[in-house]
């Protein structure tokens, strides 16, 4: 009886601590949402923790007026770049997991290292090359950049994913006389849906959230949404409610992806912690 009571107390304590911590993690969400719903007149520093007296969507509308074009830029960037890098990752992952040749782990190392470099170490040549080939300050240029630097993580995700597909399936394909590409097309690709979801979520999130490439390689009208947000937040004249509404808008697409497909997001995350 005594141990049972003790257990009940410790369970309750567990939930109390978890709830408090969860509330702590959600504080920024509260601040952002509450501030976004205040009008210019009622947003004051002293009352930042208060709920809005009257719901106002003017700050969200205002933020959208400023961010809208950049929002479209970000979609035009993130969707093709995600698709292309996922496809390249699938091909590479297939080659590296199911047809390992002599030296393939050296090749794999060569590819993976690109995931960890600070992009500052390639930024000067990158800018010059994009300028020469006429892709500086274009969304197409950013797509190219994100595809290239997305190859390592996309390859890693698919390689790990394909390792879990039984080799017997490929042997069966070989016995039927199917070759490298046939096996990929008819056996591997149909089994790859969840691999594509993981790589797609991961790449979309990374590309949407990227700031360094965006701020270095594009100028105002063609900038992705993260740079536009910093520009809004950096200007002295813009009210806090508009800034918070902008921050909210910028986060909506990736948050939606996370809420709808969280399980796959975590899988990408764990793949990111390598695991040969």
């Amino acid at each position: 009886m005594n141990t049972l009571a003790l257990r009940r107390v410790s369970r309750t304590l567990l939930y109390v601590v978890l709830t408090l911590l969860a509330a702590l993690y959600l504080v920024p969400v509260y601040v952002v949402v509450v501030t976004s719903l205040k009008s210019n007149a009622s947003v004051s520093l002293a009352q930042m923790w208060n709920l809005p007296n009257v719901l106002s969507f003017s700050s969200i509308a205002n933020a959208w007026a400023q961010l809208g074009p950049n929002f479209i830029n970000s979609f035009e960037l993130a969707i093709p770049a995600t698709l292309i890098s996922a496809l390249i990752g699938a091909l590479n992952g297939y080659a590296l997991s199911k047809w390992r040749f002599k030296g393939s782990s050296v090749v794999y190392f060569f590819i993976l290292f690109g995931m960890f470099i600070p992009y500052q170490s390639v930024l000067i040549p990158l800018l010059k090359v994009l300028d020469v080939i006429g892709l500086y300050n274009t969304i197409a240029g950013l797509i190219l950049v994100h595809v290239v630097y997305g190859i390592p993580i996309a390859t890693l995700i698919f390689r790990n994913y394909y390792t879990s597909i039984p080799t017997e399936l490929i042997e069966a394909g070989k016995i039927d006389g199917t070759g490298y590409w046939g096996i990929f097309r008819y056996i591997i690709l149909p089994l790859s849906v969840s691999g594509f979801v993981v790589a797609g979520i991961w790449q979309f999130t990374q590309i949407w959230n990227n700031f360094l490439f965006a701020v270095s390689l594009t100028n105002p009208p063609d900038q992705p949404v993260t740079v536009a947000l910093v520009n809004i937040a950096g200007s002295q004249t813009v009210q806090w409610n508009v800034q918070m509404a902008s921050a909210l808008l910028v986060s909506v697409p990736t948050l939606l992806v996370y809420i709808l497909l969280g399980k796959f997001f975590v899988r990408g995350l764990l793949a990111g912690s390598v695991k040969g």
Partner: protein
Amino acid sequence: MKTPTELNAKTIPRILAPKRKKFSWDMFSSVATLIPSLILLGVFVYGFIGWTVYVSFSQWNSLIPNFNSAGFLNYSIIFSSYRFQSDLRNIVVFTAFFIIACLIVGLFLALLIDQKIKVEGFFRSIFLFPMAISFVVTGVVWSWILNPSTGVNLILKAFGWKSLPSWFLSTTIAPNWPFGQIQLGIPVALLAVLIAAVWQMSGFAMAVYLAGLRGISDEIKEAARIDGSGVFRMFFSIILPQLRGTTTTIIIILTAASLKIFGLIYAMTGPGQQFLTDMPSLNMFQTTFQGDQFAQGAAIAIVLLLMIAIFIVPYLIVTLRQGDDA
């Protein structure tokens, strides 16, 4: 001595019959698949790094490119600059505290969630969601929450806190140990950046720890329980040693992320007063693209790359070796 068939069995995957002739279209296709990526990465990663190294030894410190050799002059200039010395101190201090905080918070959260609680998915999602958000958003939002005249300080004031912290605007350094010509100290302003960064990344540590905890076999835990181990004994003698590999992984990944940190600093504090929150990544960006000191910027970038490579290269070699044995 090894016979040829033994060598084949080792080097060629077992999906191929051992007696097959050496050239195979399938193996050729496998290599051919990888070639475009290898060329792209060869140019965009390795070639560009080489190019940046070359620039870092040049005299290109204006808008007009000048590739005459400067020897180690750019490196000597950055290492003797006050700003870069601050960067090195900040990055070391920040990374150390960031990793320790993420490990402790992440492990604590993972242990709580691993207690077979009812709404596990709900709590896991809440601790992990900041990872889905851009560092830039985190910077903008936390710079308001930690704004000295409002935000958290309003709450501290309500609790009767007298001397309110000025958070990221603080120019205080404490404690201030001299080391050679450099004053080592912890910039208090970094604390604000740390709070934001830990908020964003501790969920990652939690997720990896949770996977690690689930990987510990129940038999080991059961055996320890039968031996009469208490909760603490169990944690320190069984669970923590079993999580050593997981901890190493988290440390390596977070170190790489921390050394690269850019968007958060850019959006939250910038270099800060007296470069108290400056980082090499930001310094490189401003030196190169706002100051047009291309060669010096390149030198900063190369130092940053070396700092990361020291951790990443051994880690990748060890992980890939283990993967091969499996």
